[in-house]
């Protein structure tokens, strides 16, 4: 296959692999979105000593499909005074960035299909097949940061175009929240840059290879703080509890989603869950070693080789999703002024300290912090 057909300067296998990767990732993320709703209801149910959905199919496993069908056949309602175009556009703007952020996330190592090596990352390919060096977007983290702040446009637009006071307040809160927390999240990622010396996600993951001790979150104390802060700020950015002020039911009916019905509402819902998955995937990539550890990457059973690096990634992402749901089942919502105070007065100084601290540790302990400490 190495000297196979060439189309527009790239081998045909490249196009086939690309389409296959996009399809597989998209379907997996969509399925995870659907079943995250089921898992969340089930999990929170059991945490509240209830059962959760169990009527539709065995263990309620068909519940997401039933919910989707129900929403699909609901009436489309556009409020009389709403600005229709923006109103219809908003769910799309909310949904799409959540999915396309996955383009740069490396969800597995390099696999070989029919002699053609391909990396398990959509925006990555191997030009020099014999050496197997992966070329990917060299500003992958910036791309993710850009998309993370793009999703909020959908929410702001929804809040404004609905022409409802609740929606507008929800949209305002969403924008204020993302401005406050994007800053702290971005600064927390700077700690990762300082350790990896690269913005390419492939590089960042490769640098964390070789055991759990090499994962960034545990490599030095400041990186651990950065990891915690980044995860919390991410929760705030994607409007999950305890930071779900933009849709706070008790105050704002349903916030930016008040006037939405039918599939448009479902799209906001999907965007929320897709965002959660993306954020967990980014956290795994940046801090938890990406697709390295704990399962061996290639397992040979009876002459067959199974590439399992993606399973490491999936396990870690699912664990973080579990943590998100766990947090939702535990904490009440923040008050608005507390939210702002937490973002500006606590997380921002803390992340600045982390940047300085990580930089100092990287500079003074070039051969590893813990090793130098305990030798």
């Amino acid at each position, binding site marked *: 296959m190495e000297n196979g057909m060439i189309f527009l300067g790239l081998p045909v296998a490249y196009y086939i692999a690309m389409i296959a990767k996009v399809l597989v990732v998209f379907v997996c993320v969509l399925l995870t979105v659907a079943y995250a709703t089921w898992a969340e209801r089930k999990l929170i149910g*059991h*945490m509240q*000593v*209830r*059962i959760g959905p169990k009527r539709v199919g065995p263990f309620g496993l068909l519940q997401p499909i039933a919910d989707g069908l129900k929403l699909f056949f609901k009436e489309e309602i556009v409020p009389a005074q709403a600005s229709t175009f923006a109103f219809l556009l908003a769910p799309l703007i909310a949904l799409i960035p959540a999915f396309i952020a996955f383009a740069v996330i490396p969800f597995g190592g390099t696999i070989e299909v029919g002699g053609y090596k391909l990396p398990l990352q959509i925006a990555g390919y191997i030009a020099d097949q014999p050496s197997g060096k992966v070329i990917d977007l060299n500003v992958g983290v910036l791309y993710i940061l850009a998309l993370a702040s793009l999703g909020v446009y959908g929410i702001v637009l929804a809040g404004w175009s609905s022409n409802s006071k609740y929606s507008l307040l929800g949209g305002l809160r969403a924008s204020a929240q993302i401005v406050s927390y994007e800053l702290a999240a971005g600064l927390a990622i700077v700690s990762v840059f300082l350790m990896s010396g690269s913005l390419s996600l492939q590089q960042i993951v490769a640098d964390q290879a070789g055991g759990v001790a090499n994962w960034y979150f545990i490599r030095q104390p400041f990186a651990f703080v950065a990891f915690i802060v980044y995860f919390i700020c991410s929760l705030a950015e994607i409007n999950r509890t305890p930071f779900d002020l933009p849709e706070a039911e008790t105050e704002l009916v349903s916030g930016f989603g008040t006037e939405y019905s039918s599939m448009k509402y479902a799209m906001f819902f999907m965007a929320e869950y897709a965002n959660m998955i993306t954020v967990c995937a980014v956290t795994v990539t940046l801090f938890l070693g990406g697709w390295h550890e704990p399962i061996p990457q290639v397992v040979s059973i009876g002459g067959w080789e199974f590439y399992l690096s993606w399973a490491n990634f999936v396990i870690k992402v699912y664990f973080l999703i579990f943590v998100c749901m*766990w947090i939702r*089942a*535990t*904490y009440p919502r923040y008050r608005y002024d507390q939210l702002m105070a937490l973002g500006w007065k*606590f997380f921002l100084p803390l992340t600045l300290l982390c940047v300085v601290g990580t930089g100092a540790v990287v500079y003074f302990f070039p051969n590893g912090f813990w090793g130098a400490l305990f030798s």
Partner: protein
Amino acid sequence: MFTPVPLIKGLLITLKHLFMKPVTLQYPDEKVAPFPRFRGLHALNVSHNRSKCVACYLCPTVCPAKCITVEAAEDDKHDKYASKYEIDLLRCIFCGYCVDACPVDALKMTSAYELASYKRDDFVFTQERLLDKR
């Protein structure tokens, strides 16, 4: 001073609850067993193939909701009996005073509590429907 200790304690509580047995009762499939003295639907005790009621009017007298209608009559053996005995469950407050008042132990309350119906008329229980047919 901020510490993460209470936050972690909270997380541990929810984690602990995750592994508890759910308290949910799947109602139409599983039903609550009422306690022995539960005051549900009334029933008239039967003796010699008819109600034990002697139509003394003590139960409609004591009834705070005035939901019991009794009409007395005389049978072949010149005994007093209730020719009509009706309880309007839409008025009944299930206080059980009628059972306490009854001098001949003709009335009791059963454990039946699923009393919903589609028509108002169905809630007026006649003597025939109240008879305790075992």
